[in-house]
């Protein structure tokens, strides 16, 4: 049992950080939950009226659930593309590249993290714009091809987001791939398993934790993204995130924005919970 003084010093060390987090994160999220049940944005000296109207609006108008679907699909596509292109890079790095060059490549992959996300998205507008680099490259090989006009389209949003988030999955997959005991693979090979079987039965299952962490780190922020769809998607960039942004910056319908935020958050958390459940079931079967 620890003495009272030690307990007090522990609380003294912890308190400042958690008071700060309470004022800036936990209380605001609670306030927002309360706001989502209000009829309209509360102004000074007005009695607050509680209602389920905002949530009802979501279900009554197909528009919002359509946007929710769009945001979730965007999260899905971006995560999928990151896994498809990022996993092989992590595997190659962990298995076939050694020493200094592995360290250098890994550093180069992580380095963009430290640069500004907005600037990276902006740089894609320069590449994808009409008459930009991509158009010139295509026209160099196919002189008859017209302008692609890829900027302000759905693929542009996906490309920009994959560029922003692919380092996460490469890093998390690399960390779990690198931790696999090499003698396991040697054993499988010497017992006659083909390369593919070794990968399917040993390497891949053992790297799954890293893959899942990486996928979650990508899926959650992408479904809530609004800056990238706006800049790269133009008119086709309307997502639940951009509509939530509008409620706070243009329309000033805070209760609706709050309700939409909590619906988005709830659905994302449900998907994460379900995937956790599936993984547990799977590992129990295996």
């Amino acid at each position, binding site marked *: 049992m620890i003495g009272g003084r030690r307990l007090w*010093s*522990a609380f003294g*060390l912890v308190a400042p*950080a*958690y008071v*700060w*987090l309470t*004022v*800036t*994160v*936990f*209380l*605001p*999220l609670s306030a*927002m939950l309360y*706001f989502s049940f209000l009829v309209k944005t509360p102004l000074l000296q007005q009695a607050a009226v509680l209602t389920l109207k905002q949530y009802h609006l979501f279900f009554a108008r197909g528009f919002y659930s359509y946007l929710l679907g769009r945001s979730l699909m965007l999260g899905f596509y971006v995560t999928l593309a990151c896994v498809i292109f990022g996993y*092989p*890079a992590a595997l*190659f*790095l962990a298995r*076939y590249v050694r020493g200094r060059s592995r360290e250098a490549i*890994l*550093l*180069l*992959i*992580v*380095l*963009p*993290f*430290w*640069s*500004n*996300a*907005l*600037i*990276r998205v*902006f*740089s894609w*507008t*320069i*590449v994808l714009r009409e*008459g930009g*680099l991509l158009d010139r490259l295509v026209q160099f090989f196919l002189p008859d091809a017209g302008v692609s006009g890829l900027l302000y389209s759905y693929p542009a949003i996906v490309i920009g987001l994959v*560029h922003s988030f692919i380092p996460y999955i*490469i890093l998390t997959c690399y*960390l779990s791939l690198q931790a696999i005991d090499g003698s396991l693979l040697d054993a499988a090979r010497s017992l006659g398993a083909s390369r593919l079987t070794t990968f399917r039965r040993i390497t891949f299952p053992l790297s799954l934790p890293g893959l899942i962490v990486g996928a979650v780190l990508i899926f959650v922020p992408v479904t*809530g*993204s609004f*800056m990238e769809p706006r800049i790269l998607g133009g008119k086709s960039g309307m997502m639940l*995130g951009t509509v*939530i*942004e509008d409620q*706070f*910056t243009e329309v000033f319908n805070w209760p609706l*924005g709050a309700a939409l*935020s*909590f619906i*988005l*958050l709830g659905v*994302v958390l449900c998907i994460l919970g379900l995937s956790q459940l599936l993984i547990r079931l799977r590992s129990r079967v295996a």
Partner: protein
Amino acid sequence: MIAAGQFAVRSYLTLMLAFLYLPIAIMIAMAFNESALYELPFKFSFVWFEALSGNTQLWAATRNSILLATASTIIATILGTMSALAFARYQFRGKTLLRVILFVPVTVPWLIIATAMLVFFFWVGIGRGLHAMLLAHVALSLPYVIVIVGARLTSFPMELEEAAATLGATPWQVFRRISAPIIAPGIVAAALFSFAISFDQFATSYFLSAPGVSTLPVEIYSAIRRGFTPEINAISAIVIVLSMGIMLIFSQLFRFSGTPAE
């Protein structure tokens, strides 16, 4: 066969790096192109950097960004290290809960946290502006500081501290002479992380910026929405070269790039 495989591996990784760096390189190159409409052929010129030097609004935003990132790094690193020390050194009720709720600011999309802050700060009278952004940036950095410093703390033996305490050192002396030097690399890494989070922070700064008081990412965002100018390329080029350069130097000094030291 093996040579061909090696070649495929190298080409794939090269393509990946090209995908990551090419857009940035082109964006930087366009900052030195004379044409206002990014037209080719390329004509080297400093005209956009000259235009940038007269843009007081952008410079004010840059100054705000640097001030905010510095202040938020100092506060978050101190408060976060204190918490990490408490978690590593004391057993107390509620510790697990405190560690779990740290993941709330990390997992909830920043759009939702930022709008919640806007609503709450407006409601209680904190309002918008640099002070509100500082509150936000510190909060978003804290979980990372606690986790990074905590990881470093768990990897060194507590006996050293106990020995010092038994020999009569005060808690502050134990921290200054024993703990601090050992966890210093963790603190440096955590500080770099929180600086990057603040300097890169767009969502909270965007919703909490007051008219006339904004940060660099917010200015760039509104400039892009007004229409492109190579001036934005010029400031972006400066920012990206500086921030990546600084991180490159630090990573060489402290080797926290993810690979274990061999």
